[in-house]
Structures are given as structure tokens and as C-alpha cells.
């Protein structure tokens, strides 16, 4: 890499001196994302303020063959937006314009640094919503959501980020801009928008995002169901799904998590003695239908063994129930110095067995594991509380995480449902994909980025790939 100070000078000429961070004290603040187990200090941090600046920065880096890592708010949970020494971190938070809300066509056009919740707030006066709602939505950006294919509680009914992106303007690693998709959502040729979403920054940077908005529901019912066993709560989930009812959200929390929330400022009135609770939200455009479905769900939950099923009586109560769920990760900060938020998916019917196995793993390793997750999707989030300064404990966390992943894979599941692979799950990729399939992924990456300059070393463990002769440098040359 060019000596940082020279490169910093050239970058400052593009974005302005105050938007290039060279001092170690400044760079260290970007050494982690939301996952405390990985740490990388970038050589330089650059914060472009316009698309033109971003393009110029990337063209300069491409010309010098300097690797770079795009980053939004840094709320990711896989170590995906960390830049090694030798790489430049491109922070996109200043590219935060909502370019357009098109009410008639239910579309929004935004820059990548727009915060998820701000897009929701901008859509609301038009009677619309941006449905994907990761727990970090008050901080995370749409660009980051696109890179990670982010989900959230309400994705059960409305779909994940990939279901909401119609078109993208993408800046490739060589500094060229490409237009993927179309405003109406019909792919323009092969579905390259679908391929790009969830590529964790490995295919380029989304510089302009056309997202689908959906009408705000006119009626909402939020139910809190209280169970004396996780197995019974799991049966409740299966009963709802089998009945053909698709709640807007169907979330589960175990006792450890319930108590952490109730002991925190986010106390939501969850029953402290419950083994598990389900938070079920039904919404729609028709009050009568939502009430009927809510009644049906209440009956199903009671039949599954719920001790009580309570419907939020007011918007304030509903808000409180959701705050407890969305701030659960924060509340777990009370349990220990550090927290690993894990992410895996299993078939819904396997939830009770897998949760019991995870409980056993936690006991064997002497760790506190709390579960709060998207039960309707089978998307688990076992959260391991620990102290990162205790190296022995950190090793136990790593070992327990690996066992949890193996358990989920053995149940027919996968290693991540919405947090991504990043650095954290590279080692698990060969457990679910063979060398040929990993090689295919790497080959696709090289079509978009032949020199592998964008976010190197993430997603695909190169050592585990079978070589693909058709791929490699120059794959884009036609």
C-alpha cells in the first residue's frame, strides 16, 4: 500500500481534510462492529460526502490497487465491515439523502447512508412503511441492510431486504457505475439485484437504492403469550404456521432474556417466571379480519399450553412490549461485560429440540446463553454473555458457538439468517457448502471485482474453494 500519509493527502484532496481520519486514536473507533470478538484497525478512514466524491475515492484506490471496505453505521454482527491494516475504510454515513418518496408507486430512492428508521419516518406521512426492521433500525443504514440482506421481526410477513429492493446503482471496485434492476422491480436481464443484495460489500457499493414501500397496516393486534416450557411455546409457533395464519411478527424470548429485560430500563411487563414468551403481532388493512385472526391465534396458543394470552390494550402498551423485544440485546448488557449475538436458522419444527440442545451446550461450557429470536422464521439468536478480558472464557464462547452452529446444521438449518458471514462465520462455511459451491461463489465475486479489492477476506473461505478456471482477473472483459 502507498504510504498512508501520501494516500491520505490525495484522499483529502477529494473529500476534504476533516473527512480523512489518519490518527490512530480516531481509527481505533472503527476497529469493531456490533460483535466484540473481532477487531481490526484500518490504515485510513475516509468519509465521502457525495456520490461524486465516493466515485473519485474508489477510482483512486482502484488505480493504486488499495483494498477498501465500505461501512455504514457499524452495527453489523459478523465482523463484516472491519478493515485490515493495508485497507481503507469508507464510511458512507454522510451519503444520507432520501432522494425521493414516490407515493403513487410506493417507492423510495435513497443514498446508502440513510438510517433505516429515518426512511420509515419519511414514508409514514404518505401512509407507507419500509418493512424490514432490524433491531438496530434506529442506527443501521439502508446501504448496510442491502449489503447484509437484513431482516427483522416483521420480515415474517413482509419479507427481508431482498424482497424490498427494486433497483440499485452500484459502484464497482474499478470505479465504474452500473445500473441493476428496474424501478418497477422486474429484473433487467438476470436478477443481478438479487445477486447483489446480501453480498456483504464484496460486489461493490450500492450508491443509490430504489426500495419498495408497503401500505401501513390499518389494524394491529399485539399478543403476549406466556408459557411454562419452551417446548410448549414452540408448539404454539407450529400451530399458528400450520393454520395458515401469517403474523406480521412471531418472536420468542426465553427466561434468561425475559429477566434481563425486566431488570432493565426497558422493562415491558413480561412475566418473570415464564419459561418463554411469544410476542405475536397480527396486522392488516381490515380490522374485522385482523380481530378474527387474533382470536384464532389466541385459541391456538391456549391449546398449545399458554398460561395466559394478553392483547395489548393500547398503542402505549404495544410500544412497550416491542421496546422490550427490540432492546433485549441492550438489556443483556447487564448480564456481563460482553455479548455475542449469534444467528442461525433451523426448520421451525426443530426449534424445541434445538433450544434444548443449546441449553445443554451452555451448561457444559459454564456460560449464560439467552435466547431472543424470530420464532416464526426459525431464526435463532442465542446470545452468549461473557467477559472478553477472560481469555479462557473467550475460548469457551468460541467453542460453544461452534457447537451451536453444528447443532443447527445437523437439524437441517444454516449458519446465518440475517447477520451475514463476514469474518465471524468464515470457518463454518465449509460445513454447509462443498468446495465446488464455495468456488462458484468466489468466481461470481471475481466477475464483479476481479482484483478482489472490495472488503477482502470476507464471506468465502478461499482456502476451502475448488478453483474455477472460468473465473479470475479479467472476467468482466467481454
Amino acid at each position: 500500500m502507498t504510504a498512508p500519509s501520501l494516500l491520505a493527502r490525495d484522499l483529502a484532496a477529494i473529500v476534504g481534510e476533516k473527512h480523512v481520519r489518519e490518527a490512530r486514536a480516531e481509527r481505533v473507533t472503527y476497529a469493531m462492529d456490533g460483535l466484540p470478538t473481532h477487531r481490526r484497525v484500518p490504515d485510513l478512514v475516509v468519509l465521502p460526502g457525495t456520490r461524486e466524491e465516493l466515485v473519485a475515492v474508489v477510482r483512486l484506490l482502484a488505480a493504486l490497487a488499495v483494498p477498501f471496505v465500505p461501512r455504514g453505521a457499524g452495527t453489523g454482527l459478523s465482523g463484516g465491515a472491519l478493515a485490515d491494516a493495508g485497507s481503507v475504510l469508507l464510511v458512507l454515513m454522510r451519503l444520507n439523502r432520501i432522494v425521493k418518496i414516490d407515493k403513487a408507486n410506493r417507492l423510495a430512492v435513497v443514498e446508502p447512508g440513510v438510517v433505516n428508521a429515518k426512511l420509515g419516518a419519511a414514508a409514514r406521512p404518505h401512509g407507507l412503511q419500509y418493512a424490514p426492521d432490524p433491531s438496530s433500525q434506529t442506527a443501521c443504514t439502508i446501504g448496510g441492510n442491502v449489503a447484509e440482506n437484513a431482516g427483522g421481526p416483521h420480515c415474517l410477513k413482509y419479507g427481508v431486504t431482498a424482497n424490498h429492493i427494486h433497483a440499485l446503482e452500484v459502484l464497482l471496485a474499478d470505479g465504474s457505475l452500473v445500473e441493476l434492476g428496474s424501478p418497477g422491480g422486474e429484473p433487467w436481464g438476470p436478477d443481478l439485484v438479487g445477486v447483489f443484495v446480501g453480498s456483504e460489500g464484496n460486489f461493490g457499493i450500492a450508491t443509490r437504492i430504489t426500495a419498495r414501500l408497503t401500505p401501513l397496516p390499518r389494524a394491529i393486534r399485539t399478543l403476549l403469550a406466556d408459557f411454562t416450557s419452551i417446548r410448549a411455546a414452540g408448539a404454539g409457533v407450529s400451530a399458528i404456521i400450520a393454520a395458515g395464519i401469517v403474523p406480521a411478527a412471531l418472536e420468542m424470548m426465553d427466561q434468561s432474556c425475559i429477566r434481563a429485560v425486566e431488570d432493565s430500563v426497558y422493562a415491558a411487563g413480561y412475566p418473570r417466571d415464564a419459561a418463554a414468551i411469544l410476542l405475536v403481532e397480527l396486522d392488516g388493512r381490515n380490522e374485522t379480519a385482523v380481530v378474527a385472526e387474533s382470536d384464532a391465534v389466541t385459541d391456538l396458543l391456549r391449546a398449545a399450553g399458554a398460561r395466559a394470552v394478553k392483547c395489548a390494550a393500547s398503542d402505549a402498551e404495544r410500544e412497550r412490549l416491542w421496546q422490550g423485544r427490540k432492546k433485549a440485546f441492550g438489556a443483556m448488557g447487564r448480564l456481563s461485560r460482553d455479548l455475542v449475538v449469534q444467528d442461525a436458522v433451523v426448520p421451525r419444527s426443530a426449534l424445541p429440540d434445538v433450544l434444548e440442545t443449546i441449553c445443554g451446550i451452555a451448561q457444559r461450557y459454564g456460560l449464560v446463553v439467552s435466547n431472543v429470536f424470530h420464532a416464526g422464521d426459525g431464526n435463532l439468536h442465542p446470545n452468549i454473555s461473557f467477559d472478553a478480558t477472560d481469555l479462557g472464557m473467550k475460548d469457551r464462547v468460541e467453542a460453544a458457538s461452534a457447537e451451536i452452529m453444528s447443532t443447527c446444521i445437523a437439524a437441517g438449518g444454516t449458519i446465518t439468517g440475517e447477520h451475514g458471514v463476514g469474518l465471524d462465520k468464515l470457518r463454518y462455511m465449509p460445513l454447509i457448502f462443498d468446495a465446488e459451491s464455495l468456488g462458484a461463489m468466489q468466481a461470481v465475486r471475481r466477475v464483479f471485482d476481479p482484483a478482489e479489492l472490495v472488503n477482502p477476506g470476507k464471506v468465502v473461505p478461499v482456502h476451502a474453494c475448488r478453483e474455477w478456471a472460468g473465473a479470475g482477473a479479467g472476467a468482466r472483459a467481454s
Partner: protein
Amino acid sequence: MPGVGGGRGGGTSLVTILEKVTALLGEGAVLESGTDRVPRVAPGSPDAVALLLGTAHQEGWRVRIEGAGTWLQSDAPADLALTTRRLDRIPAIEPSDLTATAEAGIGLDQLRQQLADRGAWLGIDPPGLAGRTLGSVVATASAGPLRHGFGPIKDHLLGVTFVTGDGRMVQSGGRVMKNVAGYDLTRLQAGGFGAFGVIVLVHLRLRALPRADVTYLLEGAREDLTQVGEDVAAAGLTPAALELVSPALARRERWVLAVRLAGSPALVAADEAGLGAASGGGRFTQLRAEEAHAFWMRLAEGFAVRPVTFRIGGVPTASDELLDLLQHQLGDEWISASPAAGSIRWTGEASIDRLQRLRRTLAGLEVPLTLERAPWSMRSAVGHFGAYREGVGPLVAGLRRTFDPGGALVVATEGE
């Protein structure tokens, strides 16, 4: 014997190809050829597909991909036709998880029946005959009217396994509801028209069989029905399908607005009440169950009859303008439109020149045209895709080279 028509097998004779294929896959894999005498080979397993394509790549054979042969015309020049029709197993249906795994050659009619027997439902109704294969539907990403309520084909996929043009077997996605492990190659295959490999196995996201499923029709002038459609959407109804159908396709005197309500009895009852109010008081006619089935089936089959079928996708507010454009440039022959989703499908007779001009005009409106079926002479000239937006062409070409480095798969990705 000379090399077979249009293929690039060089001096490889038909007899040699048949001998080699028989040695590889056994006699049972070689079916009767079509009228163009191109040998038709039906591998019996995904591994056999990989073996066949690996050999084709080494030998320099050109291979066209076929399913049941009911959708895309079987007329591409090739050394052999690979049909997926023996890949017709359903390894798993999991009603409690609402997932299924099916081989690509299973007919949709058979798949639907087996799902229904287990209380499960696949929320897609693609154009074509009832026996059209699952692989064909995924490869062409051809959604039907249910796209309005349940999304495009890709939204129903959890993962696929495919074999590349040089015989590599690749898995993408998985069998669970959410999955961001690795890049999403499933979406590359959905709508890739086989340019990036042959789909052999599909993991599906299902729904519970709707407990209520009703269809209402309203006939009238196109502009009036468009307004009713907008009123229905504005009233907050959530139809599974809201489709505007041309008179010729609907076999009626005038245009038809078809509304399908499917889901829980409570939801359907609420929407039925709302439908009457939105249309100004009960002008819709409810079809009996068998009539509704026949209506939707006829609509789907209509697109497999005429020589050319394509789809376009614009924003909802452009639907009227796009319908006018089609009418002006090609005539309003057989058209079905989902105005709220912005998607329109046209079928009829058209010249290469007209289609190319139409695609260019639409591109200026930011609307892609995807050629879904046509004779090879038109496919090869017009391409399934074309008039790409900035920078897309080199990416598609790079992906094509990656997944089919020897160019074994005969797919008219772009026009000449």
C-alpha cells in the same frame, strides 16, 4: 454421418454421440428424438446431469435444455437435448415447516396435487400448461397473476442445486426460511433461462392451503376497470390476484378485471365485503369454484399457444401508458396485466424488427422486456434479454463465462 444441424460438435457424428451417452447413462436415458432429430437425453439423477454436461463440455457438444417441452419451443440447434423430465421426484414435503424439496423435472400439476394432499400450497400460477416443469418455471421466473399477492417466483425459493455448463454441481441457499450464508446464487438461476446452468433441485417455500379461495370478475372498458382496480387497492383489500385481461385472452366481449381472494375465511370474507363497496355496489360476478379454476387455467394456457410471449415490468402508474404502447405497436391481442404490480404479459405474433424496436422504446421508459418464448429464429435475434442498463452487459457476459466456460448451453441470452 455429418455433424448434427447447427451444433458445434465438429466431426462428431450422431451415432458417436448416442454411443457415448448410452455408455455414460445407460440406454434408458436416451429418448426418442424430436422432429429435428436432435438426440433427446433424460438423465435420471442430478449426478447424471453433471456427468452428461461434463462430457458435453469436454467433447464440445452443444446442449439445449428442455423440461416437459410444453413452454419454450424445442428448436434450438444443438448436438443433443437434455430434458429434465426424469428428474421428477419430490424428496421432501414438510407441512409443519411449510417447505418442500422437488426435482426440477416434476410437473407443476403433480407437485400441486402432492402438496394439497399434505395441506400445503405453492403460491404461484405461471403461464403455460399444467404439466410445465418446476425447473422451467424457476429458470424463466415466469410468475402469473398470483404475483400480486405472493410476489415473484424468487420469493418462493429457499435454494436450488444446479449443474454448470462444464458439469459442476453447485448448491445455493438451503431449506430454511431465512438464509444469508454466502452469495445468493439462487436468484441468479431464477430467471437466468438456463444461461448459468441447469437447475436440478429446488427448495420451496410453501403456504398453508388457503381455506377460502374465491374469484370475482368484472367486465368493462379497460380504463373503467383500471379505475376499479385502483379503488380496490386504495380500499385496503389484499387480493391474491388483481388481473386485467384482454377480451381475446379472456374470451369475452370486453376487458375483464379478475380478482382472486385467497387465505383465511376471515380475511376473504372481509375482502369480499370491501370488494362490493370498492366497485360501487356489487357489479362483480363471483365464479363457481370450477369456473374459477377453468378461468385461471385458460389464462395460463393462453400464453403457451401463440408463437411469441414476453413480459414487461414498469411502475404501477405507467401501466396504462404501457398497455397503450403495446396496443399501438403490436395490437392488443392477448394481454394480461397486473397493474398494481406493474407487470404485463403479451402473447401473439410479432416480427423480430418490431420486438427489437419495442424493447428499445421501453428501455427509454426504464422498462425491461423479457422474451419468454418464441421460435429460435426470433430468440437468437432478439434474445431473452437486451437493451441493458449501463454496465450490465459485461457482468452478464462474465457470469455466463463463469458458469458455462465452453459455451455448451444453447441459450439466447441476448440477441445478435
